[in-house]
């Protein structure tokens, strides 16, 4: 009975007893979720347009952040460093298209997946070789990102909103809106959607797949850079972030590999879910459950909806 009480009732009592902490937990989960969603977003873009399960998205986040800070440390002014980093991400997209995707076109999914492992290794080595392996401080001030926190007194306590977290949420929203506009309104965006629906059909109306791939990978690179800046500002830019980037995977299975809204909603569910879980239920089993809770939440969802939250129901045909 005692166990049942601790699992089923006590956490909710705690939530009620300290509502400010509850709000804080939700907010922290929300921000973490936004960042997971951003990583997942870059992934979804690539999966939609080129069918590649891009394992390298996580390392692209680190690589982009590292390049930015590294260039700044080498003496470039921040705006210039940002520009050059964008250039680097573009070159990266170009190189990936030319060296990896083009020769591997029409290969089975798992081979392309494997190739992105190759990219991951390559980028780890390259990033550390050029910029060194030590964690770096994100140049938040130079990028005009706010620091400090807003404390709101409420519910008999206080809730703290880090300005950088608010900025992260705002930037994420802006970016998602921008991407949506880009997809809906521009010629390239329409072409992208066409490619996502059917490669062959897109080819037949004269859309260049190679161009599309470069654009998509570059877009994913920009998303990675933004994610890298935001996460870097929260902790540090280091290769340790790579493991956190794996959290984008449960987000993806929750939201579906091809759904942008799915990535966002999935990110929020995972982010908030794991924070609540760790905070209220973690202590019951000794803590640290955050490392696997996200995957189990996703697994639970999958058992009921194997196609993800936003995927279409699969009708098997033969």
């Amino acid at each position, binding site marked *: 009975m005692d166990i049942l009480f601790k699992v089923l009732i006590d956490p909710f009592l705690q939530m009620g007893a300290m509502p400010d902490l509850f709000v804080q937990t939700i907010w922290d989960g929300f921000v973490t979720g936004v960042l997971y969603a951003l990583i997942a977003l870059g992934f979804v873009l690539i999966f939609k347009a080129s069918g590649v399960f891009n394992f390298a998205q996580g390392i692209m986040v680190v690589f982009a952040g590292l390049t930015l800070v590294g260039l700044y440390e080498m003496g470039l002014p921040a705006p210039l460093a940002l520009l050059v980093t964008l250039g680097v991400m573009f070159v990266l997209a170009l190189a990936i298209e030319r060296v990896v995707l083009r020769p591997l076109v029409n290969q089975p999914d798992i081979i392309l997946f494997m190739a992105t492992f190759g990219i991951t290794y390559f980028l780890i080595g390259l990033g550390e070789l050029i910029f060194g*392996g030590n964690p770096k401080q994100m140049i938040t001030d130079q990028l005009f990102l706010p620091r400090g926190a807003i404390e709101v007194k409420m519910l008999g306590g206080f809730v703290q909103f880090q300005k950088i977290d608010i900025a992260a949420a705002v930037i994420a929203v802006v970016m998602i809106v921008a991407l949506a506009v880009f997809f809906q309104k521009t010629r390239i965006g329409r072409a992208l959607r066409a490619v996502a629906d059917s490669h062959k059909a897109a080819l037949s109306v004269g859309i260049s797949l190679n161009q599309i791939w470069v654009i998509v990978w570059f877009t994913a690179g920009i998303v990675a850079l933004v994610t890298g800046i935001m996460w870097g500002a929260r902790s*540090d830019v280091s290769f340790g972030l790579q*493991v956190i980037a794996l959290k984008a995977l449960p987000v993806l299975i929750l939201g579906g590999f091809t759904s942008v809204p799915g990535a966002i909603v999935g990110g929020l569910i995972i982010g908030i879910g794991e924070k609540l879980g760790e*905070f209220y239920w973690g202590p019951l089993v000794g803590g640290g459950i955050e490392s696997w809770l996200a995957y189990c939440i996703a697994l639970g969802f999958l058992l009921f909806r194997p196609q993800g939250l936003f995927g279409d129901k699969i009708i098997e045909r033969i």
Partner: protein
Amino acid sequence: MSSRLKGLGLAASVLASSLMLGAPQVVAQESIYVPLFTYRTGPFAGSGIPIADGMHDYLQMLNERDGGIGGVKIALDECETGYDTKKGLECYDAVKPKNPVMVNPWSTGISLSLIPKASVDKIPVLSMAYGLSASARGDVFPWVFNPPATYWDGLAMIIRYLGTESGGLEKLKGKKIGYIYFDGGFGKEPIPLFEQMAKEMGFELKLYPVPPGEMQNQSSQWLSVRRDRPDFMVMYGWGAMNPTAIKEAVKINYPMDKFVSIWWPGENDINGTEGAKGFKMLNWHGIGTDYPALKDIQKLVVDKGLSKSPKEKVGELLYNRGVYNAILIAEGIAQAQKITGKKVVDGSDVRRGLENINLDEARFKAIGLPAFAGNLQLTCKDHNGHRAAFIQQWDGAKWVKITDFIEPMPEKVKPALDEAAKEYGEKNAGWPKRSEACDKS
């Protein structure tokens, strides 16, 4: 098709070259081979790089200034472990045939795997203030050294300090102490002692484990801290865990002067974090370059481009930690030369040398590091010294020493050590009794 065959050819040549590894070259006889296991890559590189530079530069400086130790050059060799046990073992196997006089694993994980091998291979393991705490017992672990203090000593010193802060150890009763730790071997080791002290002194212990993959995602741990409001926070962290924890602590407005860490954070981990002023940590050696030996390093090594370290990093906390490690290496070798009368010593000699380390004020002065650290004397029974350390505080730009040396609590630590050493022998069935004779010193 031809490109396929090229691929095959490449694979074949790679395989062929792997077989050539059969015979690693033997280092010239007239030198002492000292391999340094370092990690300049991976998630812990931030801590690993300054340490690696410190160790390397000091020994290199001895080579440049004195022509080595006792007139014999030190053959320095770095092996990259990435803080990964598998790579560490690989490094060990690679250096073993070259007759190293000791190994410095620089990872608790690697140390744990090397401890059983040390006595068989006759290569001493020097795990400076990390590794297995129980290996302080020289009679059980003749080949393993972990001076100047164990993690248990570290904990005891922190608790003693928290006691002084609260106005006496007995005042800790009823207080709440939080322990945020790296959820691996190193962070977990102090827990039993911590729990025991909690029971004896009557304080409440709250555990906040940080899983290795979540080092940079600690907001839930710190939210829990905010909920539990511990009177003090104790941290055993490493790598990217440290800066993240400091940032998160600032975020929840945790009073930084109540936040005490074991000796592993460095300047990099805290520099630039607004609000981190007041953070405290344990340390046992000097910082800065105000020592003749460090000046020599700058002049003879760094300025000559023999170091990988940027000049401004020389003298930083973790750099000097590396230097301290190198001093132990050098002292071990020097003592071995003195005892055996040989110039080129081997692993067995250096084991004896390490057991006879006696770094007193005079000796520190003689090696150009006056008052760099407290005295350290090792014996064949005591491979650790259980030396005192002091608390230093971050003033926003640098570390400031704020206490004298704080003695650990041998009466608490020793029984735990004995128990652990006994258990180790039992679990590792067939653990050999010490057969190495003790030197009279």
